[in-house]
C-alpha cells in the first residue's frame, strides 16, 4: 500500500463535499474509447525499507570508481566535493523550490545564483554569465546558435561555424542536433600534428559566424596559440572557447585573450560525476552577446522600500514570453547543481582554486613520470603542456589494455578508439585531485606487465 498520499481514506468524504459518488465521476470527461480499463501491468508498491534494500543491491553491484585505481575522465572528473556543500544543498528551501517566478519569496536562490554569475564571470574573464545550462555540450551548442544570431547579418560566410576537429563525436552530435535546424553549417577547424590549431584553418574562419575550440583540448593539451585566434578571425566572428573550469585556477581566462563566449562543463566544481548527470553547463559572454544568450539570468535590483533585492531579468529572450522567437527553449535547467558549484567555489577562494588546479596538474605530472618509465608507452604529444589528461600511444588496442588491467584493479583511461578508429591504440589517461600515489604505482606496474606481454 502506498504511504505518500495524505488523503487516503478521506476520498468518500471529499467526493461527497463536491456532490460526487465515486472517483470515476472525476474522470467522466475521459471518453470511453480512450479509457484504460485494466490495472497497470506493473509491480506492487514497496515500502521505503524495501526500496533501500533493492537500491543497495542494484547500485552496490555497480563498480564505483573509488573501488579501483581509476584514470578515466574525458570530460568528467573525479573530485572531492566539500562536506558542507552536500549538507547545505539538501536544505528543503533550496531543494524543493522551483524557478523563482515570485521573487519576494525566492531571494535566497536568486541571490545565490547572482553570486554564481559573479564567480563564473570572474573565473572566465567575461562580464556576463547566466545561471547555467544543462551541460557543457548543450552550452557549446547554444553558444554557437547565439553567435549566429549576433553575427548572421555581417558574416561574409553566412551561417558557417568552424568547430575544432578534436571535439569528441558525442559532443559534436549534440552540437549538430542543436544547430541543424537553424541552417547552420558546421565546418572543421583543423589542428596541426602537434595538436595546436592550424593557423591556416583559423585564417579561413575569418568572416564566419563563429569558431569553437576547447582549452585544454579534449586530449588535455594546452594551446598557447589560442591567444592569437581572436586577432586572426576579427570582430565579426565570435571566438567561443570551451574550458575545463578548474584549469582556470592556473591558466589564463579565455576572456582575457579575446574569447567572446566561454562555455564548459561545470561539474568539477561542486558535483560528483553521477554517471554523467545531473551536471551543469557554464555559459558566459561579453556584452555584445548578452541579449541573444540562452537561459536564465539574475539581476540585482531594489524593492518597493528601495532595499537590495534580486530577480530574473532580460526575460524577454525566453520561451515563456517570446515563444518560437525565443533565444532557446530552456525552462527547467540545472540550478541546484550550479548552486553546489557556487558553494564549492566560495569555499575555495582565489588561492584555493589555484591550489586545486596545481593539485590536478601535479597529479598528471606524477602519472606522466610513472608512464615515462614504461617500455612501449609513448605520449601522443610529448612536447605539449597538458592539464588533467594526456593521450598515450600503446603497443596494442586500448580496449584490450582496459580489459587486461581490470584484473589488477586498474581502469587505465578512456579508449580513444571510441572517438576515432585511427586512435584505437590510444588511451586518454586522466589524473585529478583524487588520484592517489598508490593508484599511479598500480597503473605503471600493470601497464608495464601488459605492454611486455603485447610486445612479446
Amino acid at each position, binding site marked *: 500500500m502506498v504511504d505518500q498520499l495524505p488523503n487516503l481514506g478521506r476520498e468518500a468524504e471529499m467526493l461527497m463535499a463536491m456532490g460526487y459518488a465515486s472517483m470515476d465521476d472525476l474522470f467522466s470527461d475521459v471518453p470511453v474509447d480512450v479509457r484504460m480499463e485494466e490495472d497497470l501491468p506493473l509491480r506492487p508498491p514497496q515500502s521505503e525499507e524495501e526500496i533501500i534494500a533493492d537500491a543497495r543491491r542494484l547500485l552496490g553491484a555497480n*563498480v564505483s570508481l573509488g573501488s579501483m585505481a581509476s584514470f578515466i575522465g574525458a570530460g568528467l572528473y573525479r573530485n572531492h566535493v566539500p562536506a558542507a556543500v552536500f*549538507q547545505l544543498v539538501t536544505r528543503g528551501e533550496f531543494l524543493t523550490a522551483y524557478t523563482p517566478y515570485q521573487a519576494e519569496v525566492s531571494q535566497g536562490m536568486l541571490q545565490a545564483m547572482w553570486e554564481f554569475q559573479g564567480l563564473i564571470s570572474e573565473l572566465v574573464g567575461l*562580464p556576463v554569465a547566466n545561471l547555467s545550462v544543462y551541460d557543457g555540450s548543450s552550452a557549446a551548442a547554444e553558444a554557437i546558435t547565439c553567435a549566429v544570431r549576433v553575427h548572421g547579418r555581417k558574416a561574409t560566410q553566412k551561417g558557417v561555424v568552424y568547430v575544432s576537429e578534436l571535439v569528441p563525436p558525442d559532443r559534436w552530435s549534440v552540437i549538430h542536433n*542543436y544547430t541543424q535546424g537553424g541552417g547552420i553549417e558546421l565546418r572543421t577547424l583543423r589542428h596541426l600534428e602537434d595538436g595546436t590549431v592550424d593557423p591556416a584553418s583559423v585564417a579561413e574562419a575569418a568572416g564566419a559566424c563563429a569558431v569553437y575550440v576547447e582549452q585544454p583540448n579534449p586530449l588535455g593539451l594546452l594551446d598557447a596559440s589560442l591567444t592569437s585566434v581572436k586577432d586572426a578571425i576579427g570582430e565579426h566572428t565570435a571566438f567561443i572557447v570551451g574550458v575545463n573550469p578548474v584549469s582556470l585556477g592556473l591558466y589564463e581566462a579565455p576572456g582575457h585573450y579575446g574569447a567572446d563566449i566561454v562555455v564548459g562543463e561545470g561539474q568539477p566544481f561542486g558535483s560528483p560525476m553521477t554517471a554523467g548527470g545531473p551536471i551543469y553547463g557554464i555559459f558566459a559572454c561579453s556584452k555584445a552577446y548578452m541579449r541573444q544568450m540562452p537561459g536564465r539570468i539574475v539581476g540585482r535590483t531594489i524593492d518597493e522600500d528601495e532595499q537590495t533585492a534580486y530577480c530574473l*531579468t532580460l526575460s524577454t529572450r525566453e520561451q515563456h514570453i517570446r515563444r518560437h522567437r525565443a533565444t532557446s527553449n530552456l525552462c527547467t535547467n540545472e540550478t541546484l547543481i550550479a548552486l553546489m558549484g557556487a558553494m564549492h567555489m566560495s569555499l575555495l577562494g582565489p588561492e584555493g582554486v589555484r591550489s586545486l588546479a596545481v593539485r590536478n596538474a601535479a597529479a598528471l605530472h606524477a602519472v606522466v613520470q610513472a608512464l615515462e618509465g614504461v617500455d612501449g608507452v609513448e605520449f601522443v604529444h610529448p612536447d605539449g603542456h597538458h592539464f588533467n589528461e594526456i593521450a598515450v600511444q600503446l603497443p596494442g588496442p586500448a580496449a584490450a589494455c582496459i580489459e587486461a588491467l581490470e584484473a589488477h584493479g586498474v581502469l587505465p583511461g578512456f579508449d580513444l578508439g571510441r572517438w576515432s578508429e585511427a586512435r584505437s591504440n590510444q588511451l586518454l589517461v586522466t589524473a585529478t585531485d583524487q588520484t592517489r600515489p598508490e593508484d599511479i604505482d598500480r597503473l605503471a606496474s600493470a601497464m608495464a606487465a601488459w605492454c611486455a606481454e603485447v610486445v612479446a
Partner: protein
Amino acid sequence: MNNLWDFTGAEGAGYAQPAPLVPESDLSLATPLLRKDAPRWPRLSEPEMVRHYTNLSRRNFGIDTGFYPLGSCTMKHNPRVNEVIAQMPGICDIHPHQPEHHLQGLLSIFHEMQHMLAVCAGMDEVTLQPVAGAQGEFTAVRCIQEYFRERGEAQRTRIVVPDSAHGTNPASAAMAGFEIVEVPSTEDGRIDLEALAAVLDDTIAAMMITNPNTLGLFETDIAAAAELVHGVGGQMYYDGANFNAIIGRTSPGLMGFDAVHYNLHKTFSQPHGGGGPGSGPIGVKAHLAPFLPGPVVDVRAAEAGERTVESGRWFHWREPEHSIGKVQQWHGNAGAVVRCWAFYRRYGRDLRTMSEHAVLNANYLRHAIHREAKEAGVDHLFVDGARTDVAKHEFTLSMQPAKEALGVTAMDIAKGLLDMGYMAPTVYFPLVVPECLMIEPTETEAKDTLDQFAKDFVAVVGTDPATLHAAPVTTPVRRVDEVYAARNLCLRVPEEDL
C-alpha cells in the same frame, strides 16, 4: 543581507587541501598561458560559508516550507529516501563510459524505468537521455523530422501548436527548424477541430499538445484531433507536463499519440532545486523508435560467466538504427532517473491512485474556493478560466472581474497569497485566460491544507485593494522592481557598468 563579496577573509582562507603529489616547483607549467590575475573571488571560512548559505535558504520558499500550488509545475512532496539513494557511490561515483559489466545495476534501473514509462504512456520504446521537458520536446521533434526525411517527406516543415500551449513547445519546434502554426482554442478552452482542420495539409509534420491541456481540461476531442492530423500524414506529439493527471486512467497511446515526453521531475518527483535539475525522457511508437537518441538500454540472455543482477538477464547499451545522435553528451540525468525509480517503486501499479488523488485534490480545492467565496460574498470577483464540470490535476481562475471592479490584478492576489504564507499559483498563464491564476495542489497535500488555503484565498480576494497593491509586506523583501533590474543591469560583483 551580505553577499559573498562582503566577506573579507585573509589570503588563503577557506577550504584546506592536501599538498600536491609533486611540489609545484617541480612542475613544468605552460608558462605563456599562466594566469596573471587571480579571479576576484571572495574569501570565506567554512563557518562563514555555512551561515551564509543557511541564511540564504531562509529567504527561500520550497514545498518543504509550505503549500506550493504552482500550476503546470506539479510541486509534489519529494520522498526523502530518494535523496539517500542518489548519494550512494553506485550512482555518484560512476563514469558513464565505464564498461557494461561495471554498470549492470544502473542499466537494470534504466531498463525498468524505460519499461515502466512505456507501459504508462502506451508507447513502444523510451529513451532516458533528455535532461528536461523542453529538451525532451526538442528530441522528439528531431526524431519526427528525421523520420520524415527518411521517408522522403522533407516538405513537412510546419508544426501545429494550440494557442494555450506551453512556450517551450513552439520554442523547441523552432529550434529544430520548424515553422509554427498556432491554432486558436474554442471558447471553452479546448481544441477547435474546425480551426485545426483548416491548417492541415501535407506540409504539417506534427501537432504538439498536452492533455489535460494547460487549463486543466481533458481534451474530449483528442481522438478526433489525432485522426485529423494522421489523416494528412502528420504525427501527434504529447507534452507530458500534465501526465500526473491521467496515469492508469488513460494514456497518450490510447489517445492516438505517436511520441511523448515525460517530466520525471514533475510526475515522478525529482526535487525541482530552484529551477532544476529535471529529466525529460521521451517515449515513441515503434515507427519512430529507430530515430531515438542513443544509446538505449536493452536486455539479452546472459552468457556463462557474466555476473548478472537479475538471474539470466544481461543489460546492454543499444544504438537505434537511424538514431538522431545525442542531445546530451552522456546518458542524461542518471541521478534524477535513479531518484524517480525510487519514487516509482513506492507506488508501483498504484500510480493510478496517485493520479486519482491529484485530480481529487484539484477538484476539491476548486469546489472549496467557490463555496467559501460564495459564503464570503466575493464570488463575483473571479470566474473559472474555462467552463467545465470537472477539472483534472489543475484549474484556472480569471481575476478579470476583480480587475474591472476594483483594479485588483492576478498579480496582486498572488502577492497577497505570499503574505498568507503560500507560494503563489502560476500567474498570467495560459495566455488565453485574462488575469489568470493557475492552481495545481498535487496529490501530496492534505485535505486540511486545501480547506485552509480555500479560506485564505477567499480572504485575500476580499482584502481591500490598497492593501493588496502594497503586498507583500511579510516577505524577506517587498515587491521587487523588475523594470529597475532591466534598466540598471547589475549581473555580478565586482560591479561593472553594462
